[in-house]
């Protein structure tokens, strides 16, 4: 009996092993993500935020743009305004939800655009090497010389404020680091023996790129880009705070923080709330990026 049970168990583990081995890489990454509770929680928070922001009218009662002088700076927990009101008497909850639209837009879109442009240029530079590499990388170095916040301030300073210009400025300031990372990952991969072996089998450069470079390079670049989203949200808020981003009366977390600054002594909790939202969102993006990186590490 015992022996039989042991044999059965061995059989079962073998079946399990085979099942495991038949799965593709991305399938396994997905499964490992599902096992990672923290990543699941932060992803859920971000999804909830996204839904709330997209369907903002469903989640709010008051209009975010109309206020009343009579209801200025009500504290948290006021009847009808559970998060209180801001310095001109607008409902803070409504403004937080509507403000999330701008903040997320200005936080995600620049990183996405920079990922497309910077990723393409970086992989090209890393794979081509030689003159093309030097040209792209030296031009990147020029942009790299400025800290990204200064670069973004300078660009919006020149172009003027507004959401479009904020996105443009942030995109430009995120392209250099993404080029850098993509170039170095690609150059590293290109010199590995399996690329040599692929060349030795007579494959053309584009074929090697497609089957051997991209699948090794895209994952790490994507992870790096997601880690930039949190920085981008903070930068976008910072630009608005400085008056270079979204213009009043639009709701945006950074801008709200700036406007409520004067009320910091009167109702500190209300004044801090937009900052709390910025913090939660950027931390969630950061944790998600960490989880993604861990799930994509094949050696684990």
């Amino acid at each position, binding site marked *: 009996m015992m022996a039989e049970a042991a044999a059965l168990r061995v059989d079962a583990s073998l079946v399990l092993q085979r099942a495991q*081995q038949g799965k593709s890489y991305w399938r396994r990454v997905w499964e490992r993500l599902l096992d990672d509770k923290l990543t699941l929680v932060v992803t859920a928070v971000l999804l909830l935020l996204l839904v709330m922001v997209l369907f903002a009218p469903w989640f709010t009662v008051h209009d975010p743009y109309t206020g009343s002088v009579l209801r200025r700076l009500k504290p948290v927990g006021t009847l009808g305004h559970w998060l209180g009101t801001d310095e001109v008497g607008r409902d803070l909850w409504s403004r937080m939800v509507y403000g999330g639209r701008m903040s997320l837009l200005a936080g995600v879109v620049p990183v996405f655009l920079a990922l497309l442009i910077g990723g393409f240029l970086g992989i090209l530079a890393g794979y081509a090497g030689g003159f093309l590499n030097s040209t792209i990388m030296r031009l990147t170095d020029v942009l790299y010389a400025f800290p990204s916040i200064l670069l973004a301030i300078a660009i919006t300073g020149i172009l003027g404020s507004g959401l479009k210009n904020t996105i443009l400025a942030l995109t430009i300031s995120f392209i250099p680091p993404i080029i850098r990372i993509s170039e170095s990952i690609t150059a590293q991969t290109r010199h590995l023996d*399996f690329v040599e*072996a692929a*060349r030795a089998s*007579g*494959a*053309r450069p584009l074929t090697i790129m497609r089957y051997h470079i991209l*699948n090794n390079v895209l994952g790490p670049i994507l992870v790096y880009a997601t880690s930039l989203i949190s920085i981008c949200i903070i930068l976008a808020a910072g630009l608005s705070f400085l008056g270079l981003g979204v213009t009043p009366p639009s709701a945006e977390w950074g801008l709200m923080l700036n406007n409520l600054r004067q009320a910091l002594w009167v109702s500190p909790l209300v004044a801090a709330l937009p900052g709390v939202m910025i913090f939660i969102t950027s931390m969630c993006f950061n944790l998600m990026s960490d989880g993604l990186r861990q799930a994509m590490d094949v050696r684990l």
Partner: protein
Amino acid sequence: MNEAGRGSDGADAVAREAASAPLLAVENLTKHFSVKGSLLSRSNAVVQAVDDVSFLVRRGETLGIVGESGCGKSTTARLLMHLIARDSGRIRFAGRPVGAAHGLSRRDLHRQMQMVFQDSYASLNPRLPVAMSIAFGPFVHGLAKSAALQRARQLLEAVGLDPLLFANRYPHELSGGQRQRINIARALALEPRIVILDEAVSALDKSVEAQVLNLLADLKTHFDLTYIFISHDLNVVRYISDRVMVMYLGKVVEIGPVHQIYLHPQHPYTQALLTAMPSMDPGRRTLRAPLSGDPPNPISPPSGCRFRTRCPFAEKVCEAVPPQLLALQNSVAVACHMRFPGSGHSRADKTVPH
């Protein structure tokens, strides 16, 4: 007569002894890497990685290439595979020049000649199941994906791995020996006639190494292969090779049948190498280091004979004249002044110290 011409004479003479025509003929192969200077100080220094190397590989034989690290073994392999461009020299495959206008194209060559790398992990794409890695070559050469995968399964079987268990695994799920079997299968996927094994078993532990060596021997007869076996392990080279080529600082110092090289080494460097080989008998252990120090810097190699700085028999002539690779009677070719009467070396006429 110039140096290059005489160099290939030596190798030719070795070949003439063999009845069969050479499958691969390498003449005066040279590769110098320029050492990059910085933007302000342009340097003209070059590393003479492979300098005027000529040899032949006959069909069905195993040519072992030995030498210290940095002697140009791997560069030679990469030059043969056309993974790096040669500076000068000619490579002829089955009588046809490679890379010339009416000769074999690189792509044609890659169907005929494949390579197994030392690092079994780095030479497999970590994102592809191993069967895909094996199937890649045939797929690139126009086979449909399903047919290429079918061939990969057959090859897995040929290298002793059950396709059911291993085809869909990833490189990190395999042991070093299993990975190297996969690499061998990948090299065989294009049905090449020559396989270059660049330190292919060096990273494996001894028992696995023995298994893989036996597998290589089996595959050789089964697929009618010719091997170029690069290693620093003299015991392994002796076991697997028919002929051995000894390299030092980018030059061939001696080439010949394996028993001749191992029993009657002619070049003082070969002698030193063989003395350095660990003995199986503790009573016969080597007590004195046969050679001391490292090879000289290949950026500015010594004048004349490159080995003279470490050679116990070095004389004036060794400093002045670079020795040619010349054939002896017993199908061995050696590049040493001591072996040729009239070279000016005081030991040239005396009998060879074994």
